[in-house]
């Protein structure tokens, strides 16, 4: 009996703790297997829950051993804390290669070496004659132009050397690469091979021949080509072992020239090695001496010559220093989490290793340092040193023949010279990539310095994909447009230098262009690096345009976003021409208030929503006029989700303005209250306590002007009533305002009497507001509703001492003690905590203009998933606030989109079971206090709700989550968020357009046992639905301000009334889910525990019936009658009740 236990995750037949456990399961897929195993062990302690540590006195105070003391001392001096030390050790264990695997790899390498040496040689042919190449293998290089002088023959390599991180022991899992340098014998190469890509052609042919022979070998599971670090002139051959070791290792073969083959002076950054006559078919105008330099081309040759010397340098530095190796491994993890290490111009692991070597040589790092200290020192160095201005040099000799650093600065954006003094290691790194590295380093240093957070998690374990790190994202697609852009930007020399790779040629100039255009709006611009593709040896190498898309990420500066004006120089200044040229037709002369006549650009933007998207206008405009990229090729992902928080018929705003209007109206009202004359006690404070007044109401209220003919009129009470023959009138939710009165000893000291006096105040307030300001008011015992400018406020008079009086308990000895009671708790929440929270979040909105959007989008999503009623408004607002107050490792979001993605990430990954979410509003909690809260949390975990949110005002009890969510609901939210995040990110990262962005907002309905479909006629907020209906019912509103002598219908929402009845009557039998924003369906889930037949008890017969089962009479829920009750209780509202009987066969 009872519903089938399999199926939805929501059914929590198990106890609370078990469900809490499953919350964690989602966080790691691997963890799932483990904890499901633990399910089978009965009586085992709950896994995954931290318990306060209990050590016996003897254990705590025993004499320490010297070993223990040493370790403690070491931890203190080398690491931040013992936790960090343990975490770092664990992480390294996870990413390090095990000895066993190393042995297997070594054996494989031996084999590879032998096979390579056995590849047969070929007779000499012209480079252009490639007929000797067997069918089934293609040259892994774009041979444009095809004709090139020189001869080629294949000879086995003169030397096969392992280079790179594998040898150093700094390679990290999961993808282990072993780089092997194949020194080509001198006979293959000829003089002047450095010219016109001849060396690269030979290199490619060399690989092609190798590939053909190795591919036939059964030793290899796969043989394919790839580009070395994404460089299109330098293919490499990837070998993977056959069979189960296929994923174990990738061996990359890099042919390289014999040592001292190329003369270094020919490869200086100022030298040309690709002749225009050859490359472009004609010489540059003028004499032959003005050939453009080819710095990148030269660097790529140099890189090949220096492979071995770099490895030698690194092995002498890192050699025996374990700490340094740990440090390099940590840095690699750090880079990888930030997606900085891949592709052409990435800040690769090799670069950081060299950086560590540099810091050792300048004595900033010592070989005895721990991995953590190395990480810290390198980050510190990166954060403070701008290599785009002050390059660094590993070369110690002061040979005057060496090129000067300044020469390199002229040609390369980022300069870091190797020990030869000729090779710029950062040649391919663009300025924006380096700035991104610097930005990340700075953020990380800040994080490491603040002691409050778990730095390790945020620094090394949290991935920072572009979509989640940047406020706005734009894709340039198709990439072939960039070829035209190169021509428009006159980048022919760069193309020549890059061997025709127009993507990397255009990248630098484009980013500079946009950086200049976005100016003060921009904090950081980053670009994705084209991914390094792999292709089968029988295929042609991928074209440049096939290298995916170019994605740019914009990190916006919120202060800069507010302005719509781009102020240029005065019209008569010489810079004015530049300005005009830069902005093209958008630049216009304007006269300003101070009398100056200046060039200026003004963007059309009125609302916050439009202002946030000015960067979109800037980007499309600049790309169109300067780079010939039409706006159809720019796919801007910035405000796509905003449509979900746009009100009815509003397309130009996301409601920030409407919210501000409501807040202004509230300010006016509070002024009226302050100045009210004739109250027995004067008003001492007016505080807002409604989501609107902290900018987090999903759909902001609009002024209401009800059409009287649509309503029934109750003249003597000055009120409108809904009419049975009309559709439900518009939903008007009064905004709660708490009004404190000055202290007085005249208040009675008894709860009942206080309520009467408060009621008297409410009446008096209504009377005075009507008399003195002509406002329409309606008083009840607990509040006064005031209609002002179309907004309705609900004023609640509060008496400061009332909660205390409700708490007072008198012990038999006459001692008065204070104990929380439900009533006092509620009152305190409403009159003390809620106003405090509202004002704090109101302040947060002033600091971070995107807060409103993020909080509303988050709330909208939770509600759209039908879980809205499981969470209090405030708890969701606080989670959103946490994204702004504790953004680490990110920066505070400046657009709703990125904020929402991070909300999903936070919800799906946060370990609610073992951690409180600390929201440090106004930074009132000190670091020590936070640490104390965290440690205190473990001790009291069992008494706290499943979701614990701590604020400075509420350090112990987590008031906003006391009544929910239940463990099941929270788990469901975690699950949904974990599913929604990748879907949404994939949509946003898809350059062809996001498709239907509302997908993640549609709830899955198949998990519910019963669906109650409602009639739209009686859903007042029907138009707010995620998929807004094309037509809905008239809700009796005038579009023009009308008379305000009658109070509109307040808070009348039939679905809510219906739900309240359902929950009251059947709350023990089922859970009800509904989206308050225009949901047309109520999902019902039966509670499996209540379906077990029980013995008759007078207290739990509700909705049950007695049946005799095997001679015994037991009670079970009377489902048929209950289903009919659903329809009866919601008569007129309910359309159908769909029971999916197969799911709940009793």
């Amino acid at each position: 009996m009872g519903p089938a236990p399999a199926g939805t995750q929501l059914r929590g037949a198990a106890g609370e703790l078990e469900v809490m456990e499953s919350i964690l399961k989602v966080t790691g897929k691997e963890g799932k297997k483990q904890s499901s195993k633990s399910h089978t062990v009965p009586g085992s302690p709950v896994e995954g829950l931290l318990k306060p540590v209990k050590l016996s006195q003897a254990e705590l105070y025993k004499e320490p051993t010297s070993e223990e003391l040493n370790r403690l001392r070491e931890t203190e001096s080398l690491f931040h804390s013992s936790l960090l030390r343990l975490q770092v050790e664990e992480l390294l264990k996870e990413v390090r290669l095990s000895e066993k695997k190393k042995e297997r790899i070594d054996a494989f390498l031996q084999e590879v070496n032998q096979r390579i040496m056995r590849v047969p040689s070929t007779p000499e042919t012209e480079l252009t004659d490639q007929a000797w190449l067997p069918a089934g293998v293609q040259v892994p290089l774009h041979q444009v132009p095809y004709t090139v002088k020189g001869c080629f023959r294949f000879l086995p390599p003169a030397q096969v050397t392992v280079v790179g991180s594998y040898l150093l022991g700094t390679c990290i899992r999961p993808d282990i690469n072993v780089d092997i340098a194949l020194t080509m014998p001198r006979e293959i190469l000829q003089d002047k091979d450095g010219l016109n890509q001849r060396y690269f052609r030979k290199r490619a042919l060399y690989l092609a021949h190798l590939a053909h022979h190795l591919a036939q070998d059964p030793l290899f599971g796969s043989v394919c080509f790839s580009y070395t670090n994404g460089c299109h002139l330098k293919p490499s051959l990837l070998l993977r072992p056959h069979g189960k070791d296929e994923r174990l290792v990738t061996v990359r073969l890099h042919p390289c020239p014999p040592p001292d083959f190329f003369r270094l002076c020919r490869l200086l950054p100022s030298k040309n090695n690709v002749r225009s006559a050859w490359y472009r078919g004609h010489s540059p105008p003028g004499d032959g001496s003005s050939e453009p330099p080819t710095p990148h081309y030269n660097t790529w040759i140099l890189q090949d010559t220096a492979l071995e010397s770099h490895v030698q340098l690194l092995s002498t530095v890192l050699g025996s220093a374990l700490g340094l190796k740990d440090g390099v491994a940590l840095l690699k993890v750090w880079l990888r989490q930030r997606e900085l290490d891949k592709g052409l111009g990435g800040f690769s692991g090799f670069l950081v290793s060299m950086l560590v070597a540099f810091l050792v040589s300048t004595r900033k790092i010592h070989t005895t340092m721990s991995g953590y200290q190395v990480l810290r020192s390198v980050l510190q160095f990166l954060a403070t040193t701008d290599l785009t201005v002050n390059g660094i040099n590993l070369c110690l000799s002061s040979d005057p023949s060496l090129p000067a650093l300044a020469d390199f600065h002229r040609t390369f954006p980022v300069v870091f010279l190797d020990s030869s003094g000729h090779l710029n290691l950062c040649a391919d790194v663009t300025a924006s990539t380096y700035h991104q590295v610097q930005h990340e380093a700075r953020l990380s240093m800040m994080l490491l310095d603040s002691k409050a957070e778990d730095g390790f998690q945020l620094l090394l374990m949290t991935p920072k994909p572009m979509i989640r790190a940047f406020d706005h994202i734009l894709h340039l697609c198709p990439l072939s447009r960039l070829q035209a852009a190169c021509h428009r930007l006159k980048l022919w020399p760069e193309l020549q230098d890059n061997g025709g790779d127009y993507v990397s040629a255009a990248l630098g100039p484009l980013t500079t262009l946009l950086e200049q255009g976005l100016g003060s709006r921009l904090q950081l611009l980053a670009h994705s690096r084209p991914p390094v593709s792999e292709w089968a040896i029988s295929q042609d190498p991928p074209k440049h345009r096939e290298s995916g898309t170019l994605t740019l990420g914009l990190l916006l500066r919120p202060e800069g976003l507010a302005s719509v004006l781009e102020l240029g120089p005065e019209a008569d200044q010489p810079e004015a021409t530049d300005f005009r040229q830069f902005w093209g037709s958008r630049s216009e002369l304007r006269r300003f208030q101070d009398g100056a006549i200046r060039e200026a650009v003004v963007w059309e933007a009125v609302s916050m929503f439009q202002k946030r998207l000015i960067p979109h206008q800037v980007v499309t405009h600049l790309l169109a006029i300067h780079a010939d990229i039409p706006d159809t090729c720019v796919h801007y992902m910035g405000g796509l989700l905003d449509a979900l928080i746009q009100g009815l018929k509003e397309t130009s705003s996301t409601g920030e303005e409407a919210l501000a209007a409501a807040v202004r109206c509230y300010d006016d009202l509070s002024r009226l209250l302050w100045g009210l004359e004739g109250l027995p006690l004067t008003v001492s404070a007016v505080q807002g306590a409604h989501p609107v007044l902290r900018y987090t109401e999903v759909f902001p209220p609009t002024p209401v002007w009800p059409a009287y003919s649509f309503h029934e009129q109750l003249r003597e009470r000055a009120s409108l009533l809904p009419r049975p023959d009309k559709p439900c009138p518009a939903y008007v939710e009064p905004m709660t305002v708490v009004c404190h009165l000055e202290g007085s000893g005249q208040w009675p000291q008894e709860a009942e009497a206080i309520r009467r006096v408060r009621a008297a105040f409410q009446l008096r307030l209504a009377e005075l507001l009507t008399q003195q300001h002509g406002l329409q008011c309606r008083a009840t015992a607990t509040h006064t509703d005031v209609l002002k400018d179309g907004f309705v406020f609900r004023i609640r008079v509060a008496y400061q001492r009332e909660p205390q009086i409700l708490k007072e308990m008198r012990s038999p000895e006459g001692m008065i003690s204070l104990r929380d009671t439900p009533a006092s708790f509620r009152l305190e929440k409403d009159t003390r905590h809620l106003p405090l929270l509202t004002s704090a979040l109101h302040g947060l909105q002033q600091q971070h203009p995107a807060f409103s959007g993020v909080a509303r989008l988050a709330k909208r999503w939770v509600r759209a998933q039908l879980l809205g009623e499981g969470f209090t408004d405030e708890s969701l607002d606080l989670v959103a606030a946490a994204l702004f107050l504790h953004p680490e490792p990110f920066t505070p979001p400046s657009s709703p989109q990125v904020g929402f993605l991070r909300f999903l990430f936070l919800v799906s990954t946060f370990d609610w079971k073992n951690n409180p979410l600390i929201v440090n509003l106004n930074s009132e909690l000190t670091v020590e206090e936070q640490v104390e809260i965290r440690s205190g949390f473990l001790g009291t975990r069992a008494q706290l709700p499943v979701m614990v949110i701590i604020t400075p005002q509420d350090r112990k009890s987590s008031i906003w989550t006391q009544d929910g969510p239940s463990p099941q609901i929270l788990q469901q939210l975690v699950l949904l968020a974990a599913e929604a995040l990748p879907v949404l990110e994939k949509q946003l990262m898809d350059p062809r357009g996001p498709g239907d962005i509302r997908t993640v907002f549609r709830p899955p309905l198949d998990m519910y046992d019963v669906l109650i479909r409602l009639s739209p006629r009686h859903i007042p907020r029907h138009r707010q639905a995620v998929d807004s209906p094309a037509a809905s019912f008239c809700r009796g509103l005038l579009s023009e301000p009308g008379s305000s002598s009658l109070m509109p219908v307040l808070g009348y929402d039939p679905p809510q009334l219906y739900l309240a009845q359902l929950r009251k009557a059947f709350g023990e039998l089922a859970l009800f889910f509904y989206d308050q924003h225009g949901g047309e369906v109520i999902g019902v889930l039966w509670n499996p525990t209540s379906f077990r037949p029980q013995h008759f008890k007078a207290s739990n017969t509700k909705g049950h019936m007695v049946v005799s089962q095997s001679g015994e009479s037991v009670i079970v829920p009377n489902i048929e009658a209950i289903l009919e009750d659903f329809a009866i209780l919601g008569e007129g509202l309910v359309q159908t009740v769909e029971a999916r009987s197969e799911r709940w066969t009793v």
Partner: protein
Amino acid sequence: MVARRRKRAARDPQEGIPSPPGYSAVPIKFSEKQQASHYLYMREHRVREGTNSSWPQKRTLFVLNVPPYCTTECLSRLLSPCGPVQSVELQEKPDLTESAKEPKSKFFHPRPVPGFQVAYVVFQKPNGVSAALALKGPLLVSTESHPVKSGIHKWLSDYADSVLDPEALRVEVDSFMEVYDKKIAEEEAKAKEEEGVPDEEGWVKVTRRSRRPVLPRTEAASLRVLEREKRKRARKELLNFYAWQHRETKMEHLAQLRKKFEEDKQRIELMRAQRRFRPY
């Protein structure tokens, strides 16, 4: 089982409705249209000897599982054929005492949303109870002659009812406060009278209103006193004076570190179990 149950119902309709021992089951429906019915489980209200109950013996019918749409009036109408009904009381839970006689103020105690309730029906004569127990049903809550509102119509009328008359509220508040003020004044007068007057054993009661007020007897106040004492003592104490004190501080520090270390180890263990160390 729904299907199964239906089959069984079809097979032996005459068998009678199963009911718990001591109760009789009476089917109740909202209206004719409803197919399935809920069951009222009724019995005579009885209490064990020695228990106090204010419900009249013999004449009171105890009804369980009253559906939410069934109101007091409705229940009274449905049961009146069994005999004249004196009163009907609907409650959340079975409760032995009759609720306070005076009606609650509609201003200060809004009616809660009803769920399934229990009812105490007091008949004027004892034979009403036995007649009720023999009812066959099904009882109909809403009939054409006495329609009961539900759904939209109910909410509409509820909304109309919630718009109250402020004048009535004022009158109620005033009358309550008058009574209250009188009570307080009486108490004060009595306290004043007693002040300074020793009782038969010679004790004088000292209150906050006395000429020399004393500390209020609250927990907070006594805690404050204790705190003050403690601080006073702490000021006098010498730290790091004796060698053993020094040693102990060091040991304490070590113990703290050890405890922290253990905690961290536990955390790490947990994270390892969850594979939290796999960075990507």
